[in-house]
């Protein structure tokens, strides 16, 4: 569940980047621009709150497989 949210963040941020580049490009039509902007604002909100509320998680990997690797 958490993983999904995380990759969503990356995808959202990438999409936001993409949208900002598309909007900078004058060739995008009016309707398209407005659609992109609306999508972008949603993504920006999502990214902002996700990042704002984030807390670093630390997991220690148990070396249960270590023996397998050694052989």
């Amino acid at each position, binding site marked *: 569940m958490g*993983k999904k949210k*995380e*990759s969503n*963040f*990356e995808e959202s*941020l990438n999409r*936001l*980047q993409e*949208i*900002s580049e598309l*909007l*900078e490009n*004058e060739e*995008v039509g*009016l309707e398209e*621009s*407005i659609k992109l*902007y609306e999508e*972008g*604002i949603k993504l*920006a909100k999502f*990214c*902002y709150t*996700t*990042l*704002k509320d*984030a*807390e*670093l*998680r*630390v*997991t*220690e*990997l148990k*070396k249960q*497989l*270590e023996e397998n*690797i*050694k052989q």
Partner: protein
Amino acid sequence: MKEQILSVSQITGLIKQTLEENFYEVSVIGEISNFKAHISGHWYFTLKDSNAAINCTMWRGVNNYVFFTPQDGMKVIVNGKISVYPPRGSYQIDVRSMQPAGVGELQAAFDKLKQKLAAEGLFDEKFKKPIPKYPMKIGIVTAIGSAAFQDLQSIASRRFPLAELVIASCKVQGEGAALDIANSIKLLNQQNDIDLIIVGRGGGSLEDLWAFNEEIVARAIFESKIPIISAVGHEIDFTISDFVADLRAPTPSAAMELATPNKEELFGFISEFSYHFEGKIIEIISNYRGQVNLALSSYGFRLPQDFVRNRAQFLDNLLYRFQNVFVSKLSALKNHLALLESKIQTFNVDKILQRGFIIVKQNEKFITKKKYFNPAESFLMKFYDGELKINGQEKRK
């Protein structure tokens, strides 16, 4: 005394006893050759100088305490005892400990391994994997209790708390460290969701950092499918790991800075989107409005408008002309009418005069009744064929 005849075993036993009792604790300096790390974990090698050579063994368990992996040509000091192996009648040093003959030896070993791996292409740029921009799971290969790990944690927490650190804790110095590091890298590679691995430790002596100069670590880094940042010691310390890794960081802290995007910059980007693009979208809309206006005022769009205007003007002209014609016609008719009227009047009076009547005028007025006539004044008598002026009676008195 009869000459004593000994069996092979007996003489070998005597030699074994003599040697092992007399050389129980020896330190020998020499150059390693024919080094073999057997699959059983034991080491076999020859120690030699220009005139002599001696076989050596170092058993598994004991050799764990050697912080470096011996290489052929390396000058070392070994400490141990002489032992004899009766089945072959050979003697060897049973090595208990080993150290490089000097720091120069480590440097030489470093250079040699570096050359070898470079020749194999392990440092080639073409094998360098790109470092992901937003690593969500960062594998850490270091000692979990170390200051280096503390630094990694605090920087990740400050810059990109969205990430998860997955630590595969390992020894970073001393015996077995190299193998431990290599295994931790492999372990992280067995997870399926690690985006990036940071391998490293804080500063220390050349011996402390040596594990990161070991071939086994270099190969584990090279074989990793996950991109690896190597961060060993301080800025000035270069290790073999640094050369093989996809990216070298001067310190563990720097590695985490390279690995993670800055939260503040991301916030900046996000709010820039919200602010900048609000203006941008307004600009786009007004651009389109401008384009619409431009289109409306274009020649093509003006044509129908002009057509209408032209027709309107034509119509106005027409009406104007109609009006003019009408007005002038009307006034002409009026004139004609007036003319006719006066003609009619004139015609009536003339007829009456023709029949012999006259009109009397006094002081420019027609005298239509007797009472208006003043006999004292002169008057005009209008006949059909002319007027006759008659002076008043006073003058005749």
